[in-house]
Structures are given as structure tokens and as C-alpha cells.
């Protein structure tokens, strides 16, 4: 087995060091070593998006990134989204719109939507659907998810 490496990253605004094997994915380290289990494992091959995190502001599938690749990166996970005293407008919109049923895909959707709204504060329905197409939801049919992102975009414009 290859030697373990020390990796230094920023996770949810806090400098974090961890030890990992070269074969371990960022998702595995987040979940099993750092106890950040909000990022979910649905497929392990980048198809479902349940493990989406932001890496230097971009939405990525953390199951497709090796943990060693996170050296020096700024990572944001679902655990870092809510402010101390409430919820982010996206989280709030998901609840108001009933945009989740089982909830397993929800963290990934919120992370992808967050990346989208950072890039495009006023996306069209088509923009939203295109940008969330890498996140699979099997419960909702996406209708309420798209509406939630629309609502969150509107709420952010008002702030």
C-alpha cells in the first residue's frame, strides 16, 4: 500500500489537515475521516451528483476527486452553507417549496444551485435545468426543485 499523505485544505472556511491514502476520494475522506456526512454517496462515479461540493467555488463531484488533489483547495460542503443563526436562502426555499422528499439528493442540489447562483444571479428556468442536470433526484420530478432555485434567486436579488 502506498504511503499516506498529509493534505492541507480549507474546508468550510477553516484550514484543515488530513492524512489519506492516494487512492481515497475526497468524498471518502469527508465522510469517513472528517465526519462531514452531509455529502452523500449515490454512485461513486460522478453520475448522480449527491456528493457535490464546491471546490474553489466550482461545483464538483467529490467522488471523482482524489483527496490528495484537494491540496491547497478551498472546499465548501453542505455543512458550511447555513449561517450560524439561520438558513441560507436556498435552504429556506427548498423547505418552503417542499423541494425534497427523501432528502438524499438535497445537499448535492443545494451545492450545485449555490454555484449556479454565484455565477448567474438571475438564471432562466432553462439555465437552472441545464446546470442542475448533473444532480439526480428520483422523488420529486424536479418541478419543485427548479421553483425553489427560482425563489432563492429572487430572494438573493432582494438582499
Amino acid at each position, binding site marked *: 500500500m502506498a504511503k499516506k499523505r498529509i493534505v492541507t485544505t480549507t474546508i468550510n472556511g477553516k484550514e484543515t489537515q488530513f492524512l489519506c491514502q492516494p487512492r481515497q476520494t475526497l468524498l471518502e475522506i469527508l465522510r469517513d475521516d472528517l465526519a462531514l456526512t*452531509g455529502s452523500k454517496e449515490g454512485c461513486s462515479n460522478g*453520475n448522480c451528483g*449527491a456528493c457535490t461540493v464546491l471546490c474553489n467555488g466550482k461545483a464538483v463531484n467529490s467522488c471523482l476527486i482524489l483527496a490528495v488533489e484537494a491540496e491547497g483547495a478551498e472546499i465548501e460542503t453542505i455543512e458550511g452553507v447555513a449561517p450560524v443563526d439561520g438558513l441560507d436562502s436556498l435552504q429556506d426555499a427548498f423547505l418552503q417549496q417542499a423541494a*425534497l422528499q*427523501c432528502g438524499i439528493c438535497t445537499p448535492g442540489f443545494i451545492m450545485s444551485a449555490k454555484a449556479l447562483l454565484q455565477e448567474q444571479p438571475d438564471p432562466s428556468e432553462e439555465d437552472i435545468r*441545464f446546470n442542475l442536470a448533473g444532480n439526480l433526484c*428520483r*422523488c*420529486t420530478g424536479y*418541478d419543485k426543485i427548479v421553483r425553489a432555485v427560482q425563489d432563492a434567486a429572487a430572494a438573493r436579488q432582494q438582499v
Partner: protein
Amino acid sequence: MASTSYKVIGTRPIRHDGTDKVTGRAQFGADIQLSGMLFGAILRSPHAHARIKSIDISQAESYPGVHAVVTGTDLPEQQQKVAHLGEGDVNLYHLSQNVLARQKVLYKGHAVAAVAADDIHIAQEATQLINVEYEVLPPVLDVLEAMQDEAPVLNDDVRTDSMAGEESKDPTNVAKHYFYEKGNIEKGFEAAHVVIEREYRTSTVHQGYIEPHNATALWNQDGQITIWTSTQGSFMVRQQMADLLKLPESRIKVVPMEIGGGFGGKISVYLQPVAALLSKKSGRPVKLVMDRASVFEATGPTPGSYIRVKMGADREGKLTAAEAYVAFEAGGFPGSPVVCACMCIFACYDVPHGRINGYDVCVNKPRSNAYRAPGSTHAAFAAESVVDEICERLEMDPVEFRLKNAAQEGTRRVDGVQFARIGMKETVEAIRDSEHWKSSLEGKYRGRGIASGFWFNVGLKSSVTAMLAADGTVSLLEGSTDIGGTRASLSMQLAETLGIAAEDIKPAVVDTDSVGYNDVTGGSRVTFSTGIAVHNAGLEMRRQLIERVANIWEVKVEDVQYEDGKVRGPGGKEFTFRELAAKIHATGEPITVKGTSGSENQAGAFGTHCVDVEVDPETGKVDVLRYTIAQDCGTAIHPAYVEGQMQGGAAQGIGWALNEEYVYDEHGAMRNATFLDYRIPTCCDLPMMDTIIVEVPDPQHPFGVRGVGEVPIAPPPAALVAAIYQAVGVRMRELPASPPRLLHQILQR
């Protein structure tokens, strides 16, 4: 019958578990971490059909970091015995063989052995050191081929069973034959002006829940076993575990974790007994999580099918007769939902003369399991497609045809039973009156289709406990695992019963030692049946509160009224719920009540869908332009989650119709066991989904609830192929109507 007097029912409060789910704090099955926990991996068969000649685990056992290796012989031997799982029966001999194969493997991915090790990588490596010697046998993958006498036989203990007893002497793949008859079918077809007979095929499709199966087990040193798992039925897991391990149920506690989708696929056990065996051998807790390929290859998809339907109607468009032959691919072991397909196939209509034959057939594919309205989607695809052709032949509006033939209260189904109060007609009327149906659809290669569907919905048993707190809130302990917002729908029913706010109920889904028995979260039963239990608990709490307040006021119980969250007594005496709660501890015993249900069964529910499509004639790709779902929901408790069920069910039906299928090679290997190649609908594939909630209350439920979850998956394939026909003039009689298949038909036209 509007819910005029309801204060909570019909509103849209934030779900109680919502914050945990949008912050990533909700604990799903794979999220559990235990001290000293090991990770497990399963070795699976590379062959679709083979005899196991030997298994050598010695190398794996001595691999550094490995703590335990188990095979099928670690499970107790099972006799042929049927276990009643509340939601359905299961043959324990087959279930045990499915959990870990013994003599034979019956599908690629069939579990053969398992390893527990310090980490998942070591466990996976060690499985590759297990040496299994197979005698490879020819597989049979198609339902009609498997029914032939010369087909390879999967199970030598299977004979064709029917109501009349065994129909075969020799081992066969045809495990069951069902037969229904009503009236005189020949007479019925003689009276017809139009008779259409068609054959339909559907592929194996998967529920496609995003969360893979998982189980963490601790076989403690005192012999007590705890299982943390995501399941639709923690009590079903406990019972299956007890039966498979031959232990009393009291030795097993099942802790239901949040469940990331189930749709029928998370009722049967797969990993739970294996994790327990690994824990017993290693003396440590063991976590097993499936990878996505195993979820596809080794859990319980819904069967592929062959269906032949013949229907006749007179000049006026009244159905005169209907006949069906339905054969389902059960997978490696018997138990497909073909019987449900038989009972659903003509349920939308008043059929004077009918005959239905159904066959449950083993093939070398994973053992099939329930998937949302099991069997009804296959059935609706076939029957509704024939209806569409009859309408075309009679030049009759498909809405008018449905209104003319719709089943209603008193209609006798082909299986003989009469319907109670149902809302089939009302859903068709809702579509007729919708903006969508009234709008015109213009443009080349565009078409519109409608179709209806039915599901029984079940009752079964539930228990809840409700506890009054001094601050005026009520804790609700339930055992129905919450897949899609039932904490909310149950809390709302308790809140309505007590006359308090939904937010003042604190629901918790607890383990099998902490609440009374609950049947599975399935059959669209929780809001109905656990709802009745919750209502009963609320009534009992009200009774005790009245008693208490009578005691406080020193008046007779009869002189106290409970109304609107208040108690009122003689001389204008009054307490609000909150005021009274504050006095409970000072005035007597705590108020902790239970509620149970189990003597009611649902009357069934119907939906009618309307869809507009545009077909690209160059590629065969179908775009869904507009979609409207009308469904009889009895009474919608939380309309947003009712809409969500309708939208989500329809989305699954659309995926089934247009893309989803297991693709097999000739050796019986699934060639598309990833979400990239087994393509469920994405955000880009669907439009907004309009919903029309039709409310025909079910009188058996105190608030008129009907189950909502399952019906909406049934109509989409039939509605879509009807729309495709209108768009490009080809009738797709094989699912999915995926681009290559549809293009092939377009080019052949």
C-alpha cells in the same frame, strides 16, 4: 366536499425534518459511525447461471486487515416455509438463498460471500482472494423462452402453483398461474363492433433510489443484535432477520435511519443478515454499503414482461369484453407482482365480460421486487394502449370513451370484487376541464396522449405513541419510516385532531423496541393507516384531557367539551390546550397515549394523465412539452407533498416509458449498470408538471385520506406512446420508447 372546517389539513407547513435535510445533518443509513466499526464488501457472481462447486475462503481470511469472511453456509439451513411479512409473503428458503447463494447462483451479481476488514479497500481486495469454482450453466433471460419446456430450469424446487394446486409435476420456471374470469368472454367479443388485440413487451427497470442499500450490524457479546439500516419497514427487517437467522425477534433491534428513496425496493433484506453474520464472526460492528452496480444487478427491480391484450367495444364505444395474458419475469426466484398486474389491468373500466391469465416466471435476472404500484404500470401500458386504438377506430374522443366506461362505485372488477366509492370518473373530468386539454397543440411531430391508471392502496397495521409535554407540545413516536414527508402528514393529522398547530407536534421515527408494531412504509398506506392510528391517539389524548379538566374543575366529564384546541366547561370555564398542558404534572399522572390501526383497508385510487410531446424524426428522441396529472387523493393533508408524489411518480413513469431498461448481453450480464447508461430522467428531460388534486374522500378514513404515492407511475407510458403515435404515426408496443427503438419504428413505417 371541501374540507371547510379543517385548520391544519390542507395547509403547507414546513416539514419537521426539513432543517436536518437541507443542512446535511440528517443521518442516512451510510452515515453511521460506530466505535471499532469494520467495513464489509460482498463477492458477487460473475455468471448469470452457474452451479457453485466449491468456495475457498482461506486466502481471504488470512489477508492482513481482514476480520471475518462468511458464505452461505454461515446462514442456518431453511426449509420451504412461507413467512408472512405483513405486506406480503416470502419463501424463506428462497430469501435465504438470495441473501447468500448456496448451491447455485441465479443471476449476475448474486451474493456469494462477504468480508469484513479494517477499511473498505482491504475488504474489497480480500473478496478477490475468495476462490469460487463454478460450473457455468446456460442462462435464460426472456420470459417467453423461460416458459418453454426445453428452457434451462433455475430452481429444482419450483412447480407451477395455482389456486387449484400444483399444475406441473416436474421442476419448471413457471412458478405461479393466476386466472380470473367474469361473464362470458366469447359472448362479449361477439357483441363488439371493434376488437383490437395487441402484444406488448416491457423491459426490466429499477426503482433507482439515489441512496444505495446499506446495513450496519452489531452482534453484541450478550447476543443482542442491533441493525442500523435504511428500510421501508424496520419491523419487516426484524422479522426477516429473525426468520433467516432462526432467532427470536426479541434478540433483534432495528434502528431505522433516514431512507434515501425506496419505491418498494427497500422492503426485502439483502445486506442486513450478512452484516450481522460478519459482526458475529468478528466481534465488531460492521457496515455494508452497496455500490451502484450492485444496486442495479443484485437488488429487486421490477420485472420485464410480455402482455397480450384483446378488448372489444360496441358502436357506441361501450366496452363489451376484455382479455389479457400477462407473463412477468420474476427473476432468479419466484415472486413477481404479476398478480397485481392481473388485478389492475382492466380496473379503470366497467368490463362486462373478462378473462385474465397471469404467469410468474423465473429467469436469470435479479429477484424482482415491488416498484411503486407493482405491476400496474405494465398493465396500464398495455390496456390503455389498446383503448387508444379502439378510440381511433371508433373515431371517439379518448376522454369521452373513458367517461363512458369508467369504473365507479359498485362496478364489478374482472376478479369479481365490487368497487367501493372511487374517483376514476372524476380524474377524467378533471383532465377534460383542464387548461391543458382545452388548449390546442400545434406544430409538426407533436402529439397529445392521455391515459388512466389504478392502484389498490393497502391498509395494514400501525402503532404510535403520543406524549403531552408541559409546554403544550406533543411528541409523536412512530415506526413508519418517513420517505417523503410522512412526519409532516402524520403530525398534521394529530394537530388537527387536537386542535393545535402542526409545529406543536414533534414527530420522531423510532426503533423497533421503542414503538408498537408497524407494517411497511409501502402500498401508499402511511398517511392513511398510520394516520388512523395518529387520529386514534389524538382522540384518546382528548378523552384524558377532558377527564383531567373535569377533575380540576370538579365537574362531570359530560359537562366538558373539547373543541378547537380548547376545553370548555360550565359557567364559561375555559382552558386552552397550552394552559391545560401546563397543569398536567401538578394535577395527576402524565398523559401518554397510544393509537393503533389495522382494521381498515383503502378503496383504491385512480389517476388520469395528459401529455404533449414533440418527436425528433431524425433521432427518435421524444421531448415532453407539457404534462398534467389529475389524481383522486381523497383528502390532501399536505398538498405540497401530495403534488410532489404525483410529480415524482409521473417522472418515474416517464423514465420507464422513454429511456429506462436493463440491457443484457447473451451471457446474462447487465451492460448498463450505472446511472450514466441506465438513464433516469434529469432536470433537462422534464417540463414543469402540472397537478390537479381531485378530492373524493375515502369514508373509511376520519379525514378522507386516500394513498397518493403509487398511482401516478401507472399512466405515463401509455399516455406517452399515445402522444408519440399522434406525433409520428407509430405505435410503440415495446418499452422503453427510447430513441433507437422509436427511430427504428419511424424508419420502418
